């Protein structure tokens, strides 16, 4: 009796499991999405673009692919498809009716939102990517003044796909980049307005190689600045130098280059690289007036000098440090003027700093924070410290 019962149980278990395989998707049944783009069409619909990879192009040595597994010429690596719909899912549904595999979002690298959509407001589309179990917070989110579809319809010379190329580019943090998690956090917070990385498809370089003598101009996706939002709507752009100011204000300046005029030789420049920098925001609320004291500290390395300053002498270093501080201040001021003065939004998280210090006042101010912020005074204090001078102390040409 006991044995029979046991057998029945085992049988049930096996049947339940084998007849199952509900969530099972073989690797060659999924279409891996590497890049996602969302556009807003003229008839007010949402256009969803996916950059799908064709895995066969990635086959290692085994299947007759060349050594190293690189794609050969005239071989399609990605396939960019798009469809329009009322919602993101509506568009995806249309796509999945046309594509022979399951659309697989788990490896999405980049989400590109077009300017038109951003100006309309991103809340309409962002939720899809929150609720998808496969979507991740590590996806790079970017805005483009071009059409998102056009940006994804590109390839990269160094990487296999342009989506991966953008991902690697973002990882280097040469611009102000942020991921889906950061963007959603900013979007949800009342103390800061979100910003997005700006990307564009630009002609970049010339590809070279035997058989490529006919110059072949290549278009690559590059970072070109920052998009400024008010709430969920885009209101303006910052270019690359202004983005550097934004990075100072956000305190994310590692590996940023600064070019300062030489304090001694006029017309000559000195290149510095920021190794470590942080910005402290100290809000002061007095008599209904808001003031922010920013203190920035930076450690920089000397990269090159055009003149012949002797950096073994402490007083030269002192002068350089103060010149660099002025340069940084200038950068920050330009950005601040544009964002605070022109766009009248707080993109820097100053509201959150205010919240941390003045809890009670914040609950009164938070709903009209941007207006309050537009009138706030911002004071800046920059301290620069030269850390290293590279492999050289004095220039070799410098006579004693």
């Amino acid at each position, binding site marked *: 009796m006991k044995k029979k019962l046991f057998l029945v149980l085992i049988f049930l278990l096996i049947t339940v499991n084998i007849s*199952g395989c509900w*969530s099972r998707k073989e690797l060659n049944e999924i279409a891996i999405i590497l890049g996602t783009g969302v556009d807003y069409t003229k008839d007010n619909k949402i256009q969803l673009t996916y950059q799908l990879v064709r895995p066969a192009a990635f086959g290692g040595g085994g299947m007759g692919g060349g050594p190293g597994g690189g794609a050969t010429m005239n071989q399609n690596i990605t396939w960019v498809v798009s469809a329009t719909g009322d919602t993101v899912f509506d568009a995806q549904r249309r796509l999945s009716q046309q594509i022979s595999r399951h659309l697989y979002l788990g490896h999405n690298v980049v989400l590109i939102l077009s300017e038109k959509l951003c100006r309309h407001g991103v809340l309409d589309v962002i939720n899809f990517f929150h609720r998808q179990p496969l979507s991740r917070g590590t996806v790079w989110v970017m805005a483009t003044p071009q059409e998102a579809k056009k940006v994804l319809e590109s390839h990269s010379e160094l990487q296999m796909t342009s989506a991966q190329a953008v991902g690697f580019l973002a990882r280097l943090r040469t611009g102000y980049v942020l991921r889906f998690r950061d963007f959603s956090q900013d979007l949800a917070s009342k103390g800061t307005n979100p910003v997005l990385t700006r990307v564009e498809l630009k002609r970049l370089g010339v590809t070279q190689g035997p058989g490529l003598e006919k110059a072949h101009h290549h278009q690559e996706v590059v970072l070109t600045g920052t998009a400024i939002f008010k709430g969920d709507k885009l209101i303006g752009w910052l270019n690359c130098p202004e983005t550097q100011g934004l990075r100072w204000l956000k305190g994310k300046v590692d590996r940023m280059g600064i070019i300062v005029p030489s304090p001694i030789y006029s017309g000559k420049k000195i290149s510095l690289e920021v190794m470590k920098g942080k910005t402290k925001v100290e809000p002061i609320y007095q008599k209904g007036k808001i003031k922010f004291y920013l203190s920035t500290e930076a450690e920089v390395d000397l990269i090159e000098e055009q003149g012949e300053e002797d950096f073994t002498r402490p007083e030269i270093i002192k002068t350089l440090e103060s010149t660099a501080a002025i340069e940084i201040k200038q950068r920050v001021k330009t950005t601040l003027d544009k964002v605070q003065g022109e766009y009248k939004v707080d993109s820097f998280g100053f509201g959150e700093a205010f919240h941390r210090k003045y809890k009670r006042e914040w609950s009164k101010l938070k709903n009209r924070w941007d207006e309050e912020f537009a009138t706030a005074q911002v004071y800046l204090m920059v301290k620069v410290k030269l850390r290293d001078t590279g492999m050289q102390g004095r220039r070799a040409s410098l006579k004693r």
Partner: protein
Amino acid sequence: MIYATLILFIPQNTVAYAKQDAWLSFLIAFAGGVLISLVVINLSLCFPGQTLFEYLPLILGRWPGKIIGFFYVWLFIHFCTLVDREYCSTVVAAFMPETPLVVFLIHGTIMFAYITYCGLEVLARINQLFLPLNVSLLTILFVLATPEMKVVNILPVFDTGLLPLAKSTLTPLSWFGEIITLAVVIPYLAEQKNVYRLTIKALFFVLVLIEIATLGVLLVFGPTLTSSYLFPVLSGVKMINIANFIERLEIFPLIVWITSGTVKATLFFWAAALGSAQLFGLKDYRPLILPLAVIVTALGYLLHPSIIDLINFLTQAFPFYALTFEFIIPLLLLMVVLIKGSGKK
């Protein structure tokens, strides 16, 4: 046997509903948990060698005792069902949305049933493996997630005020209150003398684990985003990306969930099986495993139509319901014992 009480490891899907200062509310809940455990231990020590189900009739008389005993059996079945359902829902929602829930419920139940069949000792032993495993996994994940963390995310402290804080304490308190299972476990502990020390140690341990998870999630996401996620820990782990290689570590919270959930649910299952056996006057609880397993699976499937319903129940109704059994009834029992002067053999 020592660590058998360390099972109160709490699946994190309800952390989302704790407020801004969630990590503080756990501290308060911990204090409450200690209070509850003191009541339970004192009660149990009045009747050495006997479980809750054995001394209930002694305190309240044969029939009232048995009826309350049945309520407790139900409570343990319900606890078990809830834990089972919690992690099955998690798995379905986060990993395998196409798979029917009942498949995982059956998996879960097979595990409880088998471990219960092997006995409390085996449960304690596997816990000795899973506990260090889970602690180290959580710690490693916490460390790996540090690049994503910002201290400003948990500032300012005490932002929401005292009342919301007190409210948010209720749910974790009812989790800590699951230490009521001690009333059944204590007679089986090897070291009766150290039971106070062990319990406090166990609770403290649980607190540390919860704090690691909660703080980690809050530091990564900040309060607003955290409370919008159903499974913040999972989302937090998804953020980990070190050198483009140490990434996509979702499997580890999954391991932590399943192992700790299994141990916890099994303990409740065992308590329910033992309790019903003792109430029916059976010598061995093993024949009751199969019917109980069927009940748990069916309840797990039927009690809540969706995960939102489950979470609503856990955050809104559950604390009051659970705390009645976890705190108020044991407290009343203890008072009766002290007044009547029964027990203390």
